[in-house]
Structures are given as structure tokens and as C-alpha cells.
């Protein structure tokens, strides 16, 4: 039968397509792993670079990445979750919500290199007196702008997933809006919000283009947010582009990858909790 054979062939193709994707993933992971594993060790992570990165470790890049992500999140998490809360709890659908949502979507669409141009103009040149110019603060804020829409989106979905009926019950018992938000909406939305935040952390850790004009190879540990520094991604870019040390470059890449893998594993845990919550409702 013709249709039977077509069915069988199609299924083989569908299985193959999934297999191809797995293979692509494995080859990227494997490639970075095989090339990077030789470089990585505890002292690689915790030592200062020596001799222009040809020896020693990548400690400044790790500190720099942490600071940059911290700044990005310190800006974007409250603003993003707050925006989501405003959209779901304080505003009925209308012109205002449409404008906010559209600008958030538009922001999400801005190419990362455009964020780079913007961050350079705004933070380094225009506000340089306050941000310390090409500082980790400037880089963090640029990334914060970039991840804001993701946080708004995921938090809004998480809050909307808290059943309407639960809010009504709470109001019915004489709870105020703030009490309802604190006791019903936020606890229900936490796994979803957390998943969104972790996703954004991953994005902020992994981005290069927006901060490439402010952060480069820098062997120092900044004393403050206003100091200049180094992140894993920009270090990886310069080490490989300048051809300084491919070994250290791959070690950096593997470190970056392990960070992403870990964040990914954490989101899985949250997602499981999330789906469990939803099933019960």
C-alpha cells in the first residue's frame, strides 16, 4: 500500500530530523569539551592571568561576569517583575497595557549589536561621568536593558497562570489587592518568575556583542562597579581573535558552557515544580 509506505518513510525522516539535532548539539558540546577540558582546573578558575593570559587563570573574567550579571539583574528583575505585576494586577487591558507590551516586544527584537551602539553612546559617552565610562556598571546596565523584555514576558505569563478564581476567593475574604498579590499571586508565580530570571541570567552571561565596545581583556579585578573589567565572553572573543592562547580560549569557552549547563539544570527543577503546581490546580 502506497500510503503505508509513505507513512513509514515519513516517520523515518522525522526520527532522523530529531537525531540530526541531537548530533549537532553533541558535536558543539563535545568540541568545546574536548578542547577545553585540558585547560580547566581549580587554579584555572581562581588564579590571576599571568604573562598575558598565556599562563595562570581567568579569575578576573569570572568575577567580571558575576558583577555584570548582578548589575543586569539588579536593574531588570525589579523593573521586569514590577512591570508584569502592573500589567496583570493593576491594569485592565487597554491602550496602556498595549503600549507597554508592544514596547517590551519591540525591545526584545532589537539586535544585540544595536544595544552595543546604544550602550556605548549612553553609558560610556553621555553618562560617562556617572558610570565610570567603560565600566562593569555600564556593561551590566546595557545587558539589563537587553534582558528586561524576557523578564517581563515570563513573569507576566507566570502571574496570569495563577487562577483567577484564587484571586476572587481572596478578595471575597476581605483581602486587599496588595495582600492578595503577596499571599496568592506571588507564591503561585514564583517558579515561573524564577525560570524566567534564570533564563535571562544565561542570556546575560552569554552575550558578547552589546558589551564588546566597553569590556575587553583586562587582567585586573575591579575595586568597584565603576571600575573596568573583563567577562568570560569578551575574553573568549579577544583571546581567540588575537590568537593569544587557544588553550585558554577553550578553557574559557568550557567554563562558560558549564555555567549555561548548570543554569539549564536549575530551570528544569523549577519547571518541574511549576508543572506540578499547575497540575494540582
Amino acid at each position, binding site marked *: 500500500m502506497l500510503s503505508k509506505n509513505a507513512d513509514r518513510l515519513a516517520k523515518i525522516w522525522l526520527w532522523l530530523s530529531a537525531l540530526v539535532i541531537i548530533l549537532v548539539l553533541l558535536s558543539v558540546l563535545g568540541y568545546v569539551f574536548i578542547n577545553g577540558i585540558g585547560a580547566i582546573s581549580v587554579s584555572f578558575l581562581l588564579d590571576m*592571568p599571568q604573562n598575558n593570559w598565556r599562563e595562570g587563570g581567568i579569575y578576573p573574567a569570572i568575577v567580571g561576569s558575576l558583577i555584570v550579571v548582578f548589575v543586569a539583574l539588579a536593574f531588570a528583575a525589579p523593573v521586569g517583575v514590577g512591570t508584569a505585576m502592573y500589567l496583570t494586577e493593576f491594569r485592565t487591558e487597554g491602550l496602556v497595557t498595549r503600549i507597554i507590551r508592544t514596547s517590551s516586544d519591540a525591545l526584545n527584537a532589537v539586535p544585540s549589536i544595536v544595544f552595543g551602539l546604544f550602550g*556605548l553612546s549612553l553609558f560610556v559617552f553621555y553618562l*560617562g561621568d556617572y558610570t565610570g565610562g*567603560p565600566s562593569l556598571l555600564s556593561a551590566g546596565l546595557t545587558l539589563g536593558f537587553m534582558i528586561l523584555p524576557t523578564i517581563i514576558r515570563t513573569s507576566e505569563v507566570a502571574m496570569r497562570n495563577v487562577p483567577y478564581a484564587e484571586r476572587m476567593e481572596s478578595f471575597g475574604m476581605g483581602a486587599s489587592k496588595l495582600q492578595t498579590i503577596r499571599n496568592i499571586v506571588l507564591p503561585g508565580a514564583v517558579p515561573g518568575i524564577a525560570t524566567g530570571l534564570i533564563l535571562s541570567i544565561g542570556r546575560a552571561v552569554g552575550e558578547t556583542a552589546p558589551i564588546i565596545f566597553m569590556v575587553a581583556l*583586562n587582567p585586573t579585578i575591579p575595586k568597584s562597579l565603576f571600575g573596568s573589567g573583563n567577562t568570560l565572553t*569578551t575574553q573568549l572573543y579577544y583571546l581567540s*581573535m588575537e590568537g593569544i592562547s587557544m588553550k585558554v580560549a577553550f578553557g574559557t569557552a568550557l567554563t562558560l558552557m558549564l555555567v549555561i549547563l548548570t543554569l539549564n539544570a536549575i530551570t528544569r527543577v523549577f519547571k518541574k515544580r511549576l508543572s506540578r503546581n499547575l497540575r494540582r490546580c
Partner: protein
Amino acid sequence: AGKDSADLVIAGSTTVQPIVTRAAEVYSKEHPDTSIGVEGGGSGTGIRMVGEGSVAVGASSRELSSEEKRAHPDLTVNTIAIDCIAIVVNPSNNLSNSSLSLAEVRDIFSGKITNYKELGGPDRRIVLVEREDGSGTRSMFESMVMNNTDVSDAALQKPASGAIRFTVSGNENAIGYLGIGYLDGSIKPIAVNGVLPSEESVRAKSYPLSRDLYLITKGKPSGLAGEFIDYLLSDAGQDIVKEEGFIRLE
């Protein structure tokens, strides 16, 4: 940032970066109370940053443009090392055993010569590799070699000398140029007018392609910036210049 007297940030050209980074590394070890940060961004960004005061020192692999001089008339240019541009090919390319005249180099890069057989080599297309528009290395190459002819628009552009080295070392058809500091076993320099690039040939002025590298300050260098530049100009500093593959100042 640079406001604290013990802190110094140097931003700009990635060519100068290895020297500055190494020097900063050694200098901070000798003066543990100081912290010297090094940022990239490129020559243009570095010059503007010093000009506007967001960093104390800018690194540049080219001289100030007239626009830059007009915008920031108070900038001082401090020469700290000499760089020399090598024309390089893949080690398997037998061009590395011969010598080219400057005119031949120009013809290759302008796209007039497109095949190695025109130079007596095998029948293979030439793949040109150059630096990006605005790069100090590139403008130096263009002014010293190209003599007002344009580099062929078929040339691959790379954001850094290391990337040029990477491409040339991986492609037997490729020819490129880079700072002498980037020479290693994976690529081979070509003799120009019969002379290979080296410290001696540059100093003897027999190798034609060399340029200065600069640190830019606002006014005369002072404070930590001044001390650091003095250190770079000292014997110890110039040793670092040499170790990183560049050429010492006289």
C-alpha cells in the same frame, strides 16, 4: 574609575594591548597599591575616551586624525614602541622563500595579481586577508604600501591580527599582513625588497614597513599615568615590549 589616584584605566587599540597588559601586570606587582585596568574598544574609542576624560590613557596604533586633533587639542601623543608590519603566507606556500617588491605586494593586494602562477607559483587563486576599515594596522599598511590604490574589495577583513594569523595558517591560498609581534611558526613572513622583517632590519631602516605605537594622555602625562608611561619607557618596560614581539624604541 580613573578618579581614584591609585587607579588607572587604559583603553583603545587592541594592537597595543599585549604590551600594556603585560606592563600593567608587572607594574602592579611592584606597586601593590595600584590597580591598572586595560580595556579594548579600538583606537578611535580609546582616543575619544581620553579626550572626554572617561579614561586617563588611550592606546592607539595610529596618529590622531585631524578631526580628533580639532575636537581634543590638548591630547599628548607618547610613543612607547615600534611595530613592524609583516606580509605573511601559509608555511606551505613557496612564496615564502622568494622576495617581493613593494610594487608586487601592492599589485597583489589591489587585486591586479589574482593567481599565484602570475608570481611563478602553482595555479591557485590568491585569498587576500586584511584588517577592518579604521584599523591602525590597516591605515599604516595602506599609506606605506598601497600608495593611493585601493585594497581589492575581495579581501577578507579580520578584526584582529590574531585572526589574520589564524586564517592564513589554515588556508594555503591566503596572504595577509600583521604586526611583527604576531609572527610564530604557523605562518611565514615574506621578504620585501629582499629584506625579512626583524628588529635589526627595521632599525637599520632596510625593512620598509614600520610604525610607532602610542599612549595618548590629556596634556602632559602626570600622576599614575605619567609613572606608568615612564615605566614603559624605562629599560624594564622596553624589555616587555621586546618580549611581546615588538621593537624597542632607541
